[in-house]
């Protein structure tokens, strides 16, 4: 499910970084509060554990094996915000050290696997496990199962929208080239049928073992407050997902580029405006009389000089 670099265009990458930034910030703040301040090592160890687990092969019938992602598991054990942080760490290490998932795509991957998986896993577990967490096995299974499907769906959407969002003037895709109907099927089928049940089973087994061994899950039965939050979260998901369906009235799976373009038409326009701002920040291309290329080059030189000076000055300020 990790999206490499070069599959998502710059706009998409930027958007997801922008979405994740406040989420990461919130996660840092919340984790500092709920986990004791010096529980930093716990978090790291949890992340390390998750990392190793993700690399382990989980045996499946037929003699083969697969990997689990672990988003739901960490959220169940540490809470959704700590789970988000932990998964972010894991994803970062995977991207950095194993090239599993890109750097520019890190925002999107974090959104899918650190945010969506953790939160959906956590809330579903909380809802299903019942008072005193009696139904923990089923709850863990379902939570992990759904979280994988949610993340896979999001991944499919992100990839599938690339031909629309990031195409050149002639409509040829510049990044991930497959349209939504292809990516949805390609992603959802193996995940729903295979990876999600596997993750469900693995998560359930692990949670069961930890509970048996005297550990605790983080899920606290906050009763009404929890249910409310969960409902809000589900509502958001529910709205996001069939948004296009309700609006466009085309049968599912046959969305053409046009419908989508209309549906999300406002998004690219917003980006277009952003691009103008960006261009304005860059030194003016108004080198009349010289070739356009030369103008580009000089602007780039000036731009980089500005950035370097900024870094230098900032470094000096730090000293004080």
């Amino acid at each position, binding site marked *: 499910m990790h999206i490499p670099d070069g599959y998502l265009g710059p706009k998409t990458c930027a958007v997801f970084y922008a979405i994740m930034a406040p989420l990461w910030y919130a996660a840092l703040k919340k984790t500092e509060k709920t986990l004791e*301040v010096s529980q930093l090592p716990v978090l790291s160890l949890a992340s390390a554990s998750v990392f190793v687990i993700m690399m382990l092969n989980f045996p499946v019938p037929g003699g083969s094996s697969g990997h689990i992602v672990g988003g739901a598991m960490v959220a169940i054990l540490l809470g959704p915000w700590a789970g988000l942080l932990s998964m972010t760490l894991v994803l970062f290490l995977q991207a950095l050290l194993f090239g599993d998932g890109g750097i520019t795509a890190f925002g999107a991957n974090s959104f899918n696997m650190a945010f969506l998986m953790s939160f959906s896993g956590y809330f579903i577990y909380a809802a299903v496990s019942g008072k005193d967490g009696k139904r923990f096995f089923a709850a863990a299974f379902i939570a992990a199962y759904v979280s994988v499907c949610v993340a896979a769906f999001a991944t499919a959407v992100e990839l599938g929208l690339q031909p629309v969002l990031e195409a050149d003037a002639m409509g040829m895709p510049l990044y991930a080239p497959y349209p939504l109907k292809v990516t949805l099927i390609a992603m959802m089928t193996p995940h729903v049928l295979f990876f999600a049940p596997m993750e469900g089973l693995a998560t359930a087994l692990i949670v069961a073992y930890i509970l048996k061994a005297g550990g605790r899950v983080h899920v606290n039965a906050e009763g009404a407050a929890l249910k409310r939050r969960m409902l809000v979260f589900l509502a958001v998901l529910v709205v996001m997902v069939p948004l296009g369906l309700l609006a466009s009235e085309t049968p599912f799976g046959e969305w053409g580029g046009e419908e989508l373009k209309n549906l999300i038409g406002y998004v690219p326009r917003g980006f277009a405006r952003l691009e103008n701002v960006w261009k304005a920040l860059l030194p003016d291309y108004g080198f009349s009389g010289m070739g356009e290329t030369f103008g580009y080059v000089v602007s780039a030189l000036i731009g980089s000089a500005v950035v370097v000076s900024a870094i230098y000055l900032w470094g000096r300020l730090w000293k004080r």
Partner: protein
Amino acid sequence: MEEMKLPEWMGEAKAVKYLDGIDVRQGFMEKNLLTLARFARGFVFQSNNAAGRGLLQSVDPSARIVGIGVLIVACVFARSAGEIMFAAAISLMLAVFSRVNMLMLLKRILPAFLLTLTVFSPVFFGFFSGGSELMGFDVFSARVALTFEGVRLGAMLVSRVIVITSFMAILFLSTAESDIFKGLSRLPVPGFFTTALFMTFRYLFVLLKIVEDAGLSRKSRVINPAKLKDTQGWFAFSVGFMVERAFRFSGDLTSAMVSRGFTGRLKVSKGVPFAIADYAWLGFSFFVFFIMARA
């Protein structure tokens, strides 16, 4: 002194059939864990030329990381064959001037290349991209043909991914492990994050060792490697066991950090300020970025 009384059945000498003749198939748990441990330990930073005197090696690790990151982002903006070739040329130059082992570089790029090629293979063909045919054949009534547009698009998509991968690989082949983490920690990332990052990495190996030890001890008992439920249960056990040990361990680690003055907000030593070489490098990478990011 009393003699300890052993149960009767321990005295029975068994007609033991040693498994010499039979290839004891390692249950994949053990195989998994052992290869994993060896892999994780050795792979990432091996054959690295961090000590060499090359271009990247003379740049401060923090600057190195920022620069490569900027170059990667620049690559994502590459949308034409020309731009990608430009980026590829830079990557090649970097590799050469940083005395990177070309064979190692290729080894790292190869998996990404194969994977991307496979994923994007339909793009090369007419049924996907349309355009003027280069060569093709008929399969039943359908035409399967490589087209000019297809090849161009496919090549662009694949080579962009390759160039980005090569930049990452070059970073790793020219930087020592500890420098990567030190470099990251000196950047304006929340201290919590970089420390956690390092400790996560560091304790990865400790955990692997724990799992390795646990896995090895299992060999001496007989467990049927083919019994699925057994191994699944074992999987859960080893994971749970590891997590438990990890949590206990983390208590000790926290104590150790607190004992030496850690109060929750990690303090990092300032490090050497950037030198001309570092600024030049940064300037270069931002230059490339601005060139490519005409959007």
